[in-house]
């Protein structure tokens, strides 16, 4: 057709026919172009690799960096042991395949954790995901694994904030429960010091903080405790005056809560400045790591109690190395000169569960892996693991107290073991200060 005779149907001279012509040319060329593109762009079939690939989204930086710090050292050591004799036998390969880990930094951001998990699944085509360290990391990562159908081994995030994402199909999780484990520790530990049984809550407004607050508010009154709840607060709160005034007014003698380190540092310093000195301060999450305790400055950490999910004193052994908890901690300290911290055990346990599962599954077929995961029944360095029908396994919890140390500036003494007497005590509980 002659261009000149074409009757424009729009102001711009674009005719319907011309539009259809150009669109089809475009679409065809795009499809043809697709066949000549590099491999990573093209639609891939099942990944054929000479190794087993594990995905790890680690909070190496940001507010949860304390949890992420022992990585990649602990991960590398565990993987080296698994690979010592060639790795794990995989039927479809007909031989042992070594394990490799791809670790990416989530910057402690849950949006980024989900994005990176999707990238590890779709780009790197990982065989199994390991999700660790607080609900902020484990929740988005396990949700992404559920979406894309990838087996996920979760650890180190309390059960309650993680459970609403279920019923899970692809994720199996192990840690302690706030109601069934943390609560009994507090109820057992607190009466060892005489108080007026008035508990002041201090909690961040996040899954951890709210989860803890909810359980304790529900359960404590039945035990004769009075709960003073000034409400939760967002990350980065600087002024705690109103909370402290309320605790003082209500004569709070037990401060209990779940907050991030920086917020607790601010809160606790202001408590002291304003003359608020409870006899017991049990704070989850904030003071798990020695650098966080040192950040309080001076003697301010003396006597603060916290949950202990793992320590060198735990009487468990690694199924990979036969190392005791003490050996693993000593190895870590020797390697980088830093004091042990609780996530070390759980990082190591993740690889124990991984190796045990694949030894039994003997395949990288995802449906077989989750079947093997479901049948897990093993002893790890963090205790026995056996998942229930809701896909979780509870790990033991005891109570600890920070006191001035000899080897390191601050040491975490085990002061309560009511539910797990097999975990030895290393100190006696004392009032704060």
């Amino acid at each position: 057709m002659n261009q000149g005779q074409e009757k424009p149907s729009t102001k711009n001279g674009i005719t319907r026919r011309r539009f259809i012509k150009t669109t089809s040319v475009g679409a065809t060329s795009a499809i043809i172009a697709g066949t000549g593109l590099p491999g990573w762009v093209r639609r891939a079939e099942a990944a054929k690799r000479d190794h087993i690939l594990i995905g790890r989204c680690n909070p190496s930086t940001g507010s949860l960096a304390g949890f992420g710090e022992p990585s990649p050292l602990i991960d590398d050591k565990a993987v080296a042991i698994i690979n010592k004799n060639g790795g794990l036998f995989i039927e479809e390969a007909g031989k042992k395949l070594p394990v490799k880990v791809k670790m990416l930094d989530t910057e402690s951001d849950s949006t980024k954790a989900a994005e990176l998990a999707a990238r590890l699944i779709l780009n790197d085509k990982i065989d199994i995901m390991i999700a660790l360290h607080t609900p902020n990391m484990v929740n988005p990562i396990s949700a992404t694994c559920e979406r894309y159908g990838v087996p996920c081994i979760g650890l180190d995030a309390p059960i309650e904030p993680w459970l609403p994402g279920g019923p899970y199909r692809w994720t199996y999780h192990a840690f302690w429960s706030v109601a069934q484990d943390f609560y009994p520790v507090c109820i057992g530990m607190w009466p060892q010091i005489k108080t007026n049984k008035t508990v002041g809550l201090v909690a961040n407004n996040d899954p951890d903080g709210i989860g803890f607050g909810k359980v304790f508010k529900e359960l404590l009154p039945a035990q004769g405790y009075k709960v003073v709840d000034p409400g939760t607060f967002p990350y980065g709160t600087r002024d705690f005056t109103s909370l402290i005034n309320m605790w003082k007014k209500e004569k709070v003698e037990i401060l209990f809560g779940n907050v991030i380190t920086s917020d607790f540092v601010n809160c606790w310093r202001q408590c002291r400045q304003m003359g608020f000195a409870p006899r017991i301060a049990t704070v989850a999450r904030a003071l798990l790591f020695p650098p966080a305790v040192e950040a309080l400055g001076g003697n301010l950490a003396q006597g603060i109690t916290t949950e202990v999910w793992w320590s060198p004193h735990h009487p468990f052994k690694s199924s990979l190395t036969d190392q005791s908890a003490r050996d693993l901690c000593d190895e870590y300290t020797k390697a980088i000169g830093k004091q042990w911290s609780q996530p070390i055990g759980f990082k190591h346990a993740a690889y124990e569960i991984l190796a045990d599962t694949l030894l039994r599954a003997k395949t990288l077929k995802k449906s077989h892996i989750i079947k093997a995961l479901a049948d897990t029944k093993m002893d790890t360095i963090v205790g026995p693991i056996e998942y229930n029908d809701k896909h979780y396994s509870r790990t033991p919890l005891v109570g600890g107290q920070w006191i001035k140390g000899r080897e390191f500036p601050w040491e975490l003494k085990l002061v309560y073991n009511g539910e797990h007497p097999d975990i030895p005590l290393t100190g006696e509980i004392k009032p704060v200060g």
Partner: protein
Amino acid sequence: MKSHQGWRLVLIAILVGALLSLPLWASRYVVLIFLLFGLHLAMAQMWNLLAGYTGLISLGQQIFIGLGGYSLAVLTVYYQLPIWLSILIGGGVCVLFAVIISFPIFRMSGVYFAIGSWIVAESLMIWFSNWDYAKKGMGFFIKAAYGVSLNQIYYSAILMGIGSVVLVFLLLRSKLGLSLMAMRDDEGASEGIGINAYRSKLACFLIAAFVTGITSGILYLNQVFIQPYNAFGIEWTVRLCFIVIIGGIGTIEGPIIGALIFVLLQQFFAEYASISLILLGVVSVLVMLAMPKGIIGTVQDKLAFEFLSPRRS
């Protein structure tokens, strides 16, 4: 001129064709990248409409990202409404909220508007993190999203991306677009010739709220887990600023290039744990120094040619 038009159409057709056929020939990872591209493009194009054409520098676009995501979560989790209807209602909620906040924040201009919109977003974050109904800071698992395939989310994201470009293109060529450009150049003078600045700005603000809200619903279909700190976080607006400024503010093509660069850089830098944010910062500083008008703005200046011109030829 005609031949220019023809090539332009062919190129657009190729690009659109490639995007539409992507799941047929590309890997799922590439589909994910372009899914993120589509979402970021739609949201950035809306921020560009406000900042680049209306002069409304909003630091509070995360208001609509949070509201869109939470609408999807609440409606699907509590009321089991269909996903797509929930996303659409989310868009409506955003428009409604935009109307409400427009009364106070439209009284501010320039930097005051920017701060005002940010404060609204921060207040919403605190509100949602203390609101029992929205599960406080616990967040929601949007489990209904498991039933939606990657391809379905991809096509909705691309639809929003392409749709946002078409929308802004048509909008700028309409009477409203002419008013906006007149206002951007000299608001006082434009009002002198009978342009109702308030109404034009409000129209753009509401359009941006609607599109951003719906895009956010699709975003959270992909993310599944939503929490107030991330949904209402300033990080979203920082992303949008980066995309628009790198690409070229006040150009329709800018957010397209910017979104593509951002998504690719984000994927690439993920390998460099702990310095990824520094690298992203360095890239933006370098681009701003070398090309103060952004990539598209500078290219357009050099070539004296606009690919998607808002001007009617």
